């Protein structure tokens, strides 16, 4: 037996640690591109979205004094028009903003609060006199009587703080009224909750149909001889190689009133009148199911491929009828694939918008269509980000419920 001195042990430990560190560093180095990629293209944008959802906009920078004064405006009771100090500060800052061209940015922001605010602000700035004619209050109200109303100042007040809950409230069909109380949005304009529910509903139905279609198919694929399975696999993968837009357009052609499907059904005498299959919910669900089906087939197939056929044989040889063997042995083993497939399809479906946009009716739009509209057309990025945030939170909650019920590895159900 060799004796090892304390210093040798230390050396050994140190060199071991060095080796370990080198390995960790090398591993980190290899993963670095991916980590950087994830950080830049995934973590940062999502963080940016979360921040945008509560960031109020440019008002505190463009009209600093007005926004400071309006934040002290009394709340909790019936508000009246603010006093002359606010009017005077506002008039001065409005002129400055018009001169250094920051006004349009503010006008766009305020237009999200009250439609028409943009024009009101731009027109007022154009006609604003150097000095008040009497009080600033009378001067502004003389330019446009709206400046004498609480509503217009309340909107300015809502835009005053640096942070706001306004966008998140709007995404949930609520708003702060002129007295700063939270209220439900008028039903004639409440669209976001309905659209979120619709998105989840369509996604759930599509996921379910995909599962029903994909499970037997994957089972067949996994049990067929290699050559036949490969051929069928190509058929499953074929849609992957075609552009989404092309596939959507083909469904439009197939499903339309005088399209091949309706003609075939009429020729077979199954229907007298052409069915309305497109520009409505069934059309959206058919087309989305087709597009997303491979994402369900592949994970289930790859899991089933790994289940040794002996297990089923063993169960049957021990006297279990086929369905019992399937239910007790095969199905629980295939569950991880089902879990992964459902998750993948559902999450992809939530973000869909081109297919519903082209194939759906007016009432089949997913929330992403609204987000795209707000981002590209009205530049209301705050509300767009808030909708994205709400969608993200709902998805995370659903994910946790889902993993609780199904289990992360999918076998707990069995």
């Amino acid at each position: 037996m060799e004796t090892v001195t304390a210093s040798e042990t230390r050396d050994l430990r140190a060199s071991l640690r060095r080796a370990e560190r080198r390995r960790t560093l090398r591993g980190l180095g290899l993963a670095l591109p991916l980590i950087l990629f994830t950080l830049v293209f995934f973590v940062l944008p999502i963080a940016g979205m979360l921040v945008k959802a509560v960031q109020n906009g440019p008002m505190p920078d463009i009209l600093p004094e007005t926004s400071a004064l309006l934040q002290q405006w009394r709340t909790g009771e019936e508000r009246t028009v603010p006093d002359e100090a606010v009017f005077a500060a506002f008039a001065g800052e409005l002129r400055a903003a018009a001169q250094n061209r920051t006004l349009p940015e503010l006008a766009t922001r305020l237009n999200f609060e009250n439609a028409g605010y943009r024009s009101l602000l731009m027109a007022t700035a154009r006609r604003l006199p150097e000095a008040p004619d009497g009080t600033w209050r009378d001067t502004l109200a003389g330019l446009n009587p709206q400046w004498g109303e609480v509503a217009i100042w309340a909107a300015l007040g809502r835009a005053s703080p640096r942070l706001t809950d306004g966008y998140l409230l709007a995404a949930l069909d609520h708003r702060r009224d002129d007295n700063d109380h939270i209220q439900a949005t008028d039903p004639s304009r409440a669209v976001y909750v309905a659209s979120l529910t619709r998105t989840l509903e369509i996604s759930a139905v599509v996921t379910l149909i995909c599962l029903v279609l994909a499970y037997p198919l994957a089972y067949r694929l996994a049990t067929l001889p290699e050559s036949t399975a490969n051929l069928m696999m190509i058929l499953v993968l074929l849609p992957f190689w075609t552009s989404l837009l092309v596939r959507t357009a083909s469904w439009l052609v197939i499903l339309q009133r005088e399209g091949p499907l309706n003609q075939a059904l009429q020729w077979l005498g199954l229907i007298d009148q052409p069915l309305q299959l497109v520009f409505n919910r069934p059309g959206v669900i058919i087309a989305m199911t087709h597009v997303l089906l491979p994402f369900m087939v592949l994970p289930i197939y790859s899991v089933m491929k790994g289940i040794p056929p002996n297990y089923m044989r063993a169960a049957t040889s021990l006297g279990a009828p086929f369905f019992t063997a399937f239910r007790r042995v095969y199905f629980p083993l295939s569950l991880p694939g089902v879990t992964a497939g459902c998750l993948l399809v559902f999450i992809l479906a939530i973000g869909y918008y081109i297919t519903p946009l082209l194939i759906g009716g007016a009432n089949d739009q997913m929330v992403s269509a609204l987000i795209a509209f707000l981002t590209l057309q009205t530049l209301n990025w705050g509300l767009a980000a808030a909708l994205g945030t709400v969608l993200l939170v709902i998805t995370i909650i659903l994910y946790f419920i889902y993993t609780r019920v199904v289990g992360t590895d999918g076998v707990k159900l069995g």
Partner: protein
Amino acid sequence: MKSTFGRLILAAGVTAGFSLLAGAASARDLTVVGWGGAAQAAQSKAMFEPFVKDTGTKLVQDSWNGGIGVLRTKAQGESTWDVVQVEADELVLGCEEGIYAQLDWGKLGNKDQYLPGMANECGVGTFVWSTALAYDKSKLGENGPKSWADFFDTQKFPGKRSLRRGPRQALEFALLADGVAPGDIYKQLATKEGVDRAFKKLDTIKKDIVWWEAGSQPVQLLQSGEVVMTSVYNGRIFAANNADKTNFAIAWPAGFIYQVDSWVILANSPNKDQAEEFLKFIQTPARQQEVANALAYGPTLKDSTGQIAPDVLPYLPTAPGVIEHGLAFDTPFWVDNIEALNERFNAWAAQ
């Protein structure tokens, strides 16, 4: 391996640095940005190429898909674009924001030569396009729809009809059909009663409307017989009748909504003189007519319809006897109200 990677990074960095230097050192050629596709091809042939040939100025073409956000980015920092074709809402917003250069009409020529509203402080109108009522003449013959009231009459014209999804060019047509005079449409829409009235009218044919999204859809819908009539961009009907030998007709007297696309010069352009020279060169009746003959989008200059080919005239929103039925799209109104009315539209659609 690590050092190879490092060298690669270094090489990439040096290359990027050089190209930046090169870009900064050479004076940039005049860069003209259109909307690509058939429109820019026609403009290139009728306007850009003759300009290069006659003046010897170098010209670079680029294309874009619109969006005021893009122009805001371009206006900051070093300029890469000079002359850009913009839609009406981008014209209004960008002009207010000072993204565009103020035009010197003394250099550009006579402002009076333009049709009303097509020349202003920031933009030169280049062509007029419109959303109009169209139907398939081979199916309806001479008994096609004559008015927007016909569009809403499912007794007289059974079948589906199609409108662009969203409030724009749906509420206006609903009010026209309800008997509001064209001049009062936007006054009505500015009031809650007017908006209610428009949605009430849309209610009457709600289940018969197919909503289109992309400009190519209404033509396809007419072609397949999915709808009996539709709102559509006039240029699309012209293109379909030419390419697919369809027999679609536009019911101009029913009323239509027209919009103007304009050229603007970006405020930070270093080639402002060249850009003005360019605009003066291309904006002539003859060149506008050549573009119109290819696209059926109307010229903005008065007296520009004389040389338009007879087979293009029926599709032209600015043709004599046609433009009188047109309603100018009220851009400031829609910039102010689009978000609120879009919410209202979606809420209505969900009912």
